């Protein structure tokens, strides 16, 4: 068929120049049937029984097989079916000639409802003619995706006006679902300038009078190029079609252009849809684990909960699920993330410059968004894995307006434990589940309501006498309103809770029930003001009330445990924020944000007063001061600057710089080297000051080959004050005088992050390398407040070299292979500097902290992904993933510890996944 290519090009040219009309009058009726045939075979069959002749490039048609029976059908019926779910469009020319095109539609009229409520209608449709500006059909062209171009004329020319530019506004929606598409970049070609749609799909752009080429691009959608001839203000809506090509071609994408275009540094976007090919551990698709393969985001080791972003502590990350905080987004001590992959749309991680609207944590914001349910059609997705199963349903409530998303996930690990041939484990239980519900309602053109609820729970009982539970709860309600072309706003109400509980039911007189919880409620108003093309303001106000019960213990079963109830803590954290995206010139973009946060610890409470300038301990304790209900104990304020800039060195090369400072008023209390679910959160008070950090970053960003390759090199330097550590052996749980155990010190982190990402083509993935250091210092005139002689020493997660490679190779339409390689410097640990004997028993002496490192970590995972066949009108689309985690069987040490066994100290090393772990997961969408 290749020989027909030339003929085809000729035909197209002819088509473009000549007048034509759609010849539908004399449509031939066809009776034909296909059984599992390739598209090429089907077309030949049609050609052999009818007068229709097809013009196409054979390669386009792929390997999809097709079945169907037709009697007295029209050619369009058959072709619609045949090319459904493909990128092929067709056009009927002169009744019997059928031209097949890839991606681009040859328009001869506008789709219905294209201009929804357009105040100023474009001129008569005859003027809207399909125009191609580039040679679309050359097979030699490397770029696979071809963008259709359309021309729109906006507004009537007003001879009396001398305005030089006009405003175009409108919505971008999904062709299939009508759902708004956010983050679509709308760029004026040749200028590199433009805008993006907000989360309602709305955009506004100022265009100079006359002809403009607008390029629309969005992840997961076929882009489009549009010629807009503008004579006056007007509106224009765009429909984008989901690009199937993208589904498995792009693993992860931070909006290709935004790499070089945005002003912010250190922003990472992960789209859940794009990570499904990445090898899994125990069958779990885990968005947060994927995040750790990107530069700057690490955890202390596999199986450790918590993330260390750019050398920050694990408590310095703000996890937001649809605006509500999640305190512990992990299950099973960190092996699994608490985020359901099937309901999550994506996550944006701000590790460099944090937008001014967010605050309260030093290092990063993980902004997780739940998918909006499809409001036009019922849909679902289910997955069956070796450890968990999950189900997500999208339920339309009111056609095209309101829909509900329900997702749940649960383990059957209890069953696994029970089937083990080990007495100790047989009587144990370990299970978890999480549920997400999201309701979205489009109230009108300008209003949208979203409500999300989340609950996760973990349960463990490994010894017969204790049960340990922890749970997260989060709920948010959000109302978005578009006031007018320039103003929009959102009101958000969010509530979150984290709690844990230990029930101990032993043999003696000390049975107890121990509990901890923290609750926060936030109200936030966020406004957007598109002042002009040069200035876009975001501003708002937020206030948050914390309530914490730092710990209580009560006797059960007639035990004589003394009930202890550490006095509850309350505090109010509020902020006002404003930011401006200021487009100074075509090349220079400034983003200036300012946030002013205040934190007030509230009564009623008793606060210990200690002698000034001395370590806080029993000896320096002066008095306990009482504060009445709602009386301000202490107020801290913090001006926070979020400044960044981007300068284009050339069209695809930019340099960005940013400065950022943050305040954190809430701290985890932990004396473990890694995060643990019994860690509690402590609010700042009279004795514990807020943590502060500053970060400077500078980066170079380059896109190559039409955004096929993204390259970034970013360096940062960060300092922190008042970070928390604890005295050796401190008891933190149920401690009424916690400030006596707390040390506050300084931190310093710096690093260089390199990322190369290829997001298109059969081979795609990314390579990341980070060199970074994370150091901390606890210096004081008093030895009890000093660690390592007051010198800087590596933090528990200081891993200088961190390399990861994620690659996905598409073998055929249905089969793809993925691999994932990670290498990291071993983390620092504290090891003994000598042994000694006391009371007939051997012990070890620990001295300077983190002087030793465990062996380096490396791991290779591979997976084979099999897509169910692409049969049309099939009930469900299925997807198999076969993964082997740690193929090399590398015994990566997780910790080294020293245990006294029978009077003698022995050294042990533990690892979590010491052998290759194969898993198979089955997913299906319906």
């Amino acid at each position, binding site marked *: 068929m290749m020989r027909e290519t030339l003929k085809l090009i000729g035909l197209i040219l002819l088509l473009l120049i000549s007048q034509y009309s759609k010849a539908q009058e004399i449509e031939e009726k066809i009776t034909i049937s296909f059984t599992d045939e390739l598209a090429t075979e089907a077309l030949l069959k049609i050609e052999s029984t009818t007068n229709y002749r097809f013009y196409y490039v054979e390669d386009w048609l792929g390997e999809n097989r097709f079945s169907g029976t037709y009697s007295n059908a029209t050619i369009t019926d058959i072709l619609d079916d045949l090319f459904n779910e493909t990128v092929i469009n067709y056009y009927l020319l002169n009744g019997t000639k059928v031209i097949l095109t890839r991606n681009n539609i040859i328009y001869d009229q506008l789709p219905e409802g294209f201009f929804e409520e357009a105040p100023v209608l474009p001129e008569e449709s005859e003027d809207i003619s399909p125009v191609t500006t580039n040679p679309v059909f050359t097979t030699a062209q490397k770029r696979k995706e071809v963008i259709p171009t359309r021309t729109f004329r906006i507004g009537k020319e007003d001879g009396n006006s001398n305005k030089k530019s006009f405003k175009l506004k409108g919505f971008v929606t999904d062709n299939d679902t009508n759902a708004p598409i956010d983050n679509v970049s709308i760029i004026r070609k040749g200028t590199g300038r433009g805008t993006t749609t907000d989360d309602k799909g709305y955009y506004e752009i100022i265009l100079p009078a006359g002809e403009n080429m607008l390029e629309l691009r969005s992840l997961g959608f076929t882009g489009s190029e549009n010629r807009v001839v503008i004579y006056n203000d007007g509106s224009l809506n765009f429909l984008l079609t989901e690009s199937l090509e993208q589904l498995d071609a792009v693993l992860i994408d931070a909006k290709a252009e935004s790499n070089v275009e945005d002003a912010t540094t250190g922003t990472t976007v992960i789209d859940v849809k794009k990570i499904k090919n990445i090898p899994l551990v*125990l069958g779990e698709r885990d968005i947060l684990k994927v995040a750790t393969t990107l530069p700057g985001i690490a955890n202390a080791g596999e*199986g450790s909960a918590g993330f260390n972003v750019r050398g920050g502590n694990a408590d310095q990350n703000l996890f937001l699920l649809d605006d509500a905080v999640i305190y512990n987004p992990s299950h099973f*001590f960190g092996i699994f993330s608490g985020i359901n992959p099937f309901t999550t749309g994506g996550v944006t991680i701000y590790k460099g410059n944090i937008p001014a609207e967010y605050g309260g944590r030093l290092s990063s914001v993980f902004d997780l968004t739940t998918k909006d349910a499809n409001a036009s059609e019922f849909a679902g997705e289910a997955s069956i894995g070796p450890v968990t199963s999950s189900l997500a349903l999208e339920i339309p409530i009111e056609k095209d307006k309101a829909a509900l998303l329900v997702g749940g996930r649960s383990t059957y690990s209890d069953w696994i434990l029970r089937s*083990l041939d080990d*007495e100790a*484990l047989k009587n*144990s239980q370990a299970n978890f589940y999480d549920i997400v519900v999201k309701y979205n309602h489009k109230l009108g053109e300008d209003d949208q309501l979203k409500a999300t609820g989340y609950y996760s729970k973990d349960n463990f009982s*490994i*010894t*017969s*006498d*204790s049960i*340990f539970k922890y749970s997260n709860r989060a709920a948010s309600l959000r109302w978005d309103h578009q006031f007018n072309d320039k103003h929009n706003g959102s009101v958000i109400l969010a509530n979150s809770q984290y709690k844990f509980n*230990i029930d101990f039911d032993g043999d*003696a*007189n*000390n049975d107890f029930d*121990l509990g901890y919880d923290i609750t926060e409620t936030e109200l936030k108003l966020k406004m957007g003001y598109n002042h002009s093309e040069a200035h876009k303001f975001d501003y708002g106000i937020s206030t948050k009330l914390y309530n914490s019960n730092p710990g209580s*213990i009560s*006797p059960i079963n007639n035990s*004589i*445990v*003394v009930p202890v109830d550490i006095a509850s803590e309350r505090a109010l954290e509020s902020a006002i924020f404003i930011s401006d995206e200021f487009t100074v010139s075509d090349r220079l973009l400034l983003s200036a944000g300012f946030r002013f946060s205040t934190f007030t610890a509230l009564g009623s409470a008793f606060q210990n007063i200690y002698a000034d300038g001395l370590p806080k301990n029993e000896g320096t304790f002066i008095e306990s001061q009482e504060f009445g209900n709602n009386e301000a104990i202490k107020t801290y304020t913090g001006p926070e600057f979020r400044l960044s800039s981007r300068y284009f060195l050339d069209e695809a090369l930019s340099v960005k710089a940013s400065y950022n400072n943050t305040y954190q008023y809430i701290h985890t209390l932990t*004396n*473990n*080297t*890694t995060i643990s679910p019994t860690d509690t959160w402590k609010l700042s008070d009279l004795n514990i000051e807020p943590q502060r950090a500053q970060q400077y970053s500078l980066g170079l960003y380059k896109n190559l080959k039409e955004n096929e390759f993204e390259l970034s090199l970013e360096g940062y330097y960060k300092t922190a004050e008042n970070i928390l550590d*604890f*005295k*050796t*052996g401190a*008891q933190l*749980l149920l401690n009424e005088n916690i400030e006596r155990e707390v040390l506050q010190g300084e931190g310093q982190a710096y690093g260089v992050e390199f990322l190369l990402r290829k997001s298109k083509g059969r081979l795609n993935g990314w390579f990341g390398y980070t060199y970074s250091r994370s150091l901390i210092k606890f210096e004081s005139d008093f030895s009890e407040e000093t660690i390592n*002689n007051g010198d800087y020493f590596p933090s528990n997660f200081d891993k200088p070299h961190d390399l990861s490679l994620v690659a996905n190779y598409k073998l055929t339409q249905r089969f793809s292979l993925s691999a994932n390689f990670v290498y990291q410097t071993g983390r620092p640990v*504290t090891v003994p*500097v000598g*042994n*000694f*004997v*006391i*009371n*007939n*028993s051997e012990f*070890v*002496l620990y001295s300077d*902290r983190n002087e*030793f490192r465990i062996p380096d970590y490396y791991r290779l995972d591979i997976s084979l992904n099999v897509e169910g066949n692409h049969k049309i009108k099939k009930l469900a689309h299925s997807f198999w993933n076969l993964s082997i985690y740690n193929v090399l069987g590398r015994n990566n040490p997780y*910790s080294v*510890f020293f*245990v*006294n066994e*029978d009077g003698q*100290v022995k*050294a*042990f*090393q*533990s690892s979590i*996944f*010491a052998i290759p*772990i194969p898993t198979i997961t089955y997913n299906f969408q319906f």
Partner: protein
Amino acid sequence: MKHINTIYRLFLLFAIISVLGGCTEEISFKTENLESALVIEATITNEIKNHEILLSRTYKFEADGPIPEENATVVMVSESGTFNFTENESGKYVSTQSFSAQPGLDYVLKISTANGESYSSKPTRLTTTTDIGDLYAERRTNDTEEDGVSIFVDTYDPTGTSQYYRFEYEESYKVVAPKWRANDLVVIDPEWPACSVELVPKTDERRVCFATDTSNTLILGTTANLEEDRLSRFEVRRVNTDNYIIGHRYSILVRQYVQSNEAFSYFSNLQEFSESESLFSQVQPGFFSGNISSETNSEDKVIGFFELTYVSEKRIFFNYNDLFPGVDQPPYVSPCFEFAPVRDQGHPTDECGLLITALLNNEISYWMENPEPESIETGPYLMVPIVCGDCTELGSNVAPDFWVEE
């Protein structure tokens, strides 16, 4: 709330190892930069005796044991006078006079080492006078469904001021050699071709012996989080029924030390840093000081706690049959297989056999004549490992002074 952490960590440890293919393995470790620190064991009690203070230095992980600190000057000063300690064996300093710690007085320990460093303790007082309460043995199945005996302590302090307890025990048990014979086989001539042996009657007790072991872990208990100072069913020792030491008659002496809060937290830190760790979260280890510090160099690390502690003790006895009527005896420490080592290897080796060398090395014990005829492949007697015929391998053939039968 130490016990909460312990529980939590324990179950973590179990949890995941077998489920997820994780593993914990012993590794060889070497101390790279030994930090030499003085280790002081100074527990002075209310007992009237010559008290001992042990001084040593830290040693490398791979080394055999502590290095005694010799030639130091050790004195204890109180309002009632000065007590001198002299070194009567390497690193062991014994008070020159017999005394008991008195309540209500401050005592300070002062040490000067041979290298010119001097150390002193904070003033310390004798703890509350609370005697050990009930000590009893109970048959109990543990968490992992194993049968055995638990030794429990109940202690009650109505004043509520004791609160912190440390226990030590000394267990003594009767061992009966299961394959004891009245005769010993002795080597008369170990030279080939004689290789002669002879049966002679045993001259001393080799069947029933008494062994004594002392505790080698820290056993700490507290009532600090309880409404009353009542330690109840506190397990100081656990022996499973597969352990031969409880096979006949067993006695345990439990010494209860009432500790100060500071001493207790020092010892519980020691304990915490030497316990099993969880796979997922490890307590941050580090140095923690006791109540002794260097006077010459404040950066100097000193290990140990100077305590004046009220001690009391109790002893109980039990027979296996009392606790486990009708239950099979625990297996003996050795399976006691019988075998017939060759006496004479004959030509062409021209050497005596294993029987002679093993007898000379005191490794085997006579059981009976071999019913098979002697050859160069089998010896003339059936023998058993020495421990099966001679209990002195495990203990003393003299009953301890305190020992009472039934």
